[in-house]
């Protein structure tokens, strides 16, 4: 089962004793602040977890995969995530079936 925002608030309620309202607000704010930082062009580095990086891409020719028609892919800014050493090591150990 995928982890969602509700699971985070639940945990904050269970483990840190925050009330449900506070827990929900903090989870919202947590992701909102990361979004705002990236929106301002500022990369976000969360040590032990990973780094949200930004990249400016120039326009390039592409194709509509359905029709095969050539269309220009416009210049854009994209977010990429690079996991930190610690997270990488923890995930590498996972051997199960996705």
């Amino acid at each position, binding site marked *: 089962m995928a982890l*969602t925002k509700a699971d985070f608030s639940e*945990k904050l309620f269970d483990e840190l004793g925050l009330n449900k309202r506070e827990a929900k607000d903090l989870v919202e704010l947590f992701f909102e602040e990361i979004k705002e930082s990236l929106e301002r*062009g*500022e990369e976000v580095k*969360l040590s*032990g977890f990973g780094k949200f990086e930004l990249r400016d891409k120039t326009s390039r020719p592409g194709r509509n995969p359905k029709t095969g028609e050539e269309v220009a892919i416009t210049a*854009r800014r*994209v977010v990429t995530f690079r996991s930190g050493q610690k*997270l990488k090591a*923890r995930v590498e150990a996972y051997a199960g079936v996705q």
Partner: protein
Amino acid sequence: MTKSELIEVLAKQQPHLALKDVEQVVKCILEQMSQSLASGDRIEIRGFGSFSLHYRPPRMGRNPKTGGSVALSSKHVPHFKPGKELRERVDESREKYPITE
């Protein structure tokens, strides 16, 4: 923005909570995310994005020091796919702000 800067920003917006409590909150969320991925579970945050694992098949690698080849076993790596809202917000502001650390 770093983790400690994020903690400070959140604390400013939740003045009834001590900085130490907000620090616990941030650590708790990140730990839960790491744990989820470490056990092979996806994370889905509406408007932000989703995290999943990508499989990497076994391959022959090289020891950069000796040049000898080493067998590397298969593994999983974390993958993040930005959500629609994050993608749009970041792209819309690209002419306004240069990319900074």
